[in-house]
């Protein structure tokens, strides 16, 4: 069964092969469902000049934000990057290139990359600066722009449970971009809270089939909350 046993024993092994200049796609929305230990390992390994594809860029000191400290990110595709003072500074200094991408387009570009769809049309961004320089085409009297797929060298993903074959399920809204990121990496690394035996996950309830996954590691997570909002109990 060695062939499908995708477990690795250390974060070092999980991120082995990451190099400066690579493209990394990451799951997560804000700080929810982010592969926090895989990000920390990228920081530890010190790869620079990275292109990152992620909806957000973490906060100062947590999530992808920690990769800013040593200026590891050269370019980022994201829909919203405004939670982070260091980020703003690097953007203003032109040390980081930001390609703002509408959230739905970002998700669809990840899916397209994984699904062998090189490009698709969307109405999102037509007539806005996002559409500048992109092909416009009319279908049934409406205007759409052409958007191309994302491909990454590494996909880093946070799951809830996985089996050793790499079948993954996500928990609640920590799902977000994770299953999409998982499909479009040459090497897809998933960290999870629990590794279970093959057969424990119901086949028709698996979110990410193991075919997309190269490495699985079990970790422990801080799961920082960005905006704790409560009602009176």
């Amino acid at each position, binding site marked *: 069964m060695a062939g499908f046993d995708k477990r690795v024993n250390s974060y070092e092994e999980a991120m082995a092969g990451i190099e400066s200049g690579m493209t990394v796609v990451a799951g997560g929305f804000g700080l*929810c469902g982010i592969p926090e230990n895989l990000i920390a390992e990228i920081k530890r390994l010190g790869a620079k000049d990275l292109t990152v594809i992620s909806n957000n860029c973490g906060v100062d000191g947590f999530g992808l934000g920690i990769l800013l400290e040593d200026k590891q990110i050269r370019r980022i595709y994201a829909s919203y*990057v405004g939670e982070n003072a260091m980020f703003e500074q690097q953007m203003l200094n032109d040390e980081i290139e930001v390609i703002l991408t509408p959230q*739905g387009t970002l998700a669809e570009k990840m899916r397209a990359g994984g699904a062998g769809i090189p490009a698709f049309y969307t109405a999102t961004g037509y*007539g806005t600066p996002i559409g500048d320089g992109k092909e416009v085409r009319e279908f049934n009297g409406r205007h759409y722009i052409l958007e191309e797929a994302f491909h990454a060298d590494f996909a880093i993903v946070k799951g809830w449970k996985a089996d050793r074959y790499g079948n993954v399920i996500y928990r609640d809204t920590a799902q*977000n971009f994770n299953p*999409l990121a998982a499909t479009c990496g040459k090497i897809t690394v998933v960290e999870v809270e629990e590794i279970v035996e093959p057969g424990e996950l119901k086949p028709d309830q698996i979110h990410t089939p193991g075919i997309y996954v190269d490495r699985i590691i079990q970790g422990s997570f801080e799961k920082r909350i960005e905006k704790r909002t*409560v009602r009176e109990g």
Partner: protein
Amino acid sequence: MALTREQMAMRVARELEDGFYVNLGIGIPTLVANYVPEGIDVMLQSENGLLGMGRFPTEAEVDADMINAGKQTVTARPGAAIFDSAESFAMIRGGHVDLTVLGAFEVDQNGNIASWMVPGKLIKGMGGAMDLVAGAENIICTMTHASKHGESKLLESCNLPLTGAGCINRVLTDLAYLEIHDGAFHLKERAPGVSVEEIVEKTAGKLVVPDHVPEMTFE
């Protein structure tokens, strides 16, 4: 008197219909959820992947894995569904959301909206706003009618970079409720005590004013 934020939310809430799937943006739109009329049930879509957003959690219910698009901790109501971001925007882009409510810096008489960037200021990103305005058939913009300096935000043509082109058909400002079609704003209601003259003065875009403009009422 200009409407308060709460009154704006109350007025928007009257546009809700029983069985509507609704996406509420950040700010005043979020408040709309507090004023859903009696006897009407709506299902809130949060674009990070939640259909059927519930109340904020109690201290004991707080769960880092359960947030809304504003990154606030939330709960799911019974019968909610949770999915990935591509599915979430498939719903939005595919026109399955019945009503979207969002804020704006400017709208114009052709239904263009600018809401995400002011050149020269730091750009934080459009999040899901461009997808929402391109996907929904039915959008209400909530905004102040004019800036603090009295400059109209209801324009002939937006000055700021657009979020979407030709996609807005209803606007609720602190002064008025208007529809946009045929290249003009159509004044439908005015805030209590606000004169038609004031609205005309503060609307830079083409404005069609009917003979009678009813005043909104709030209990």
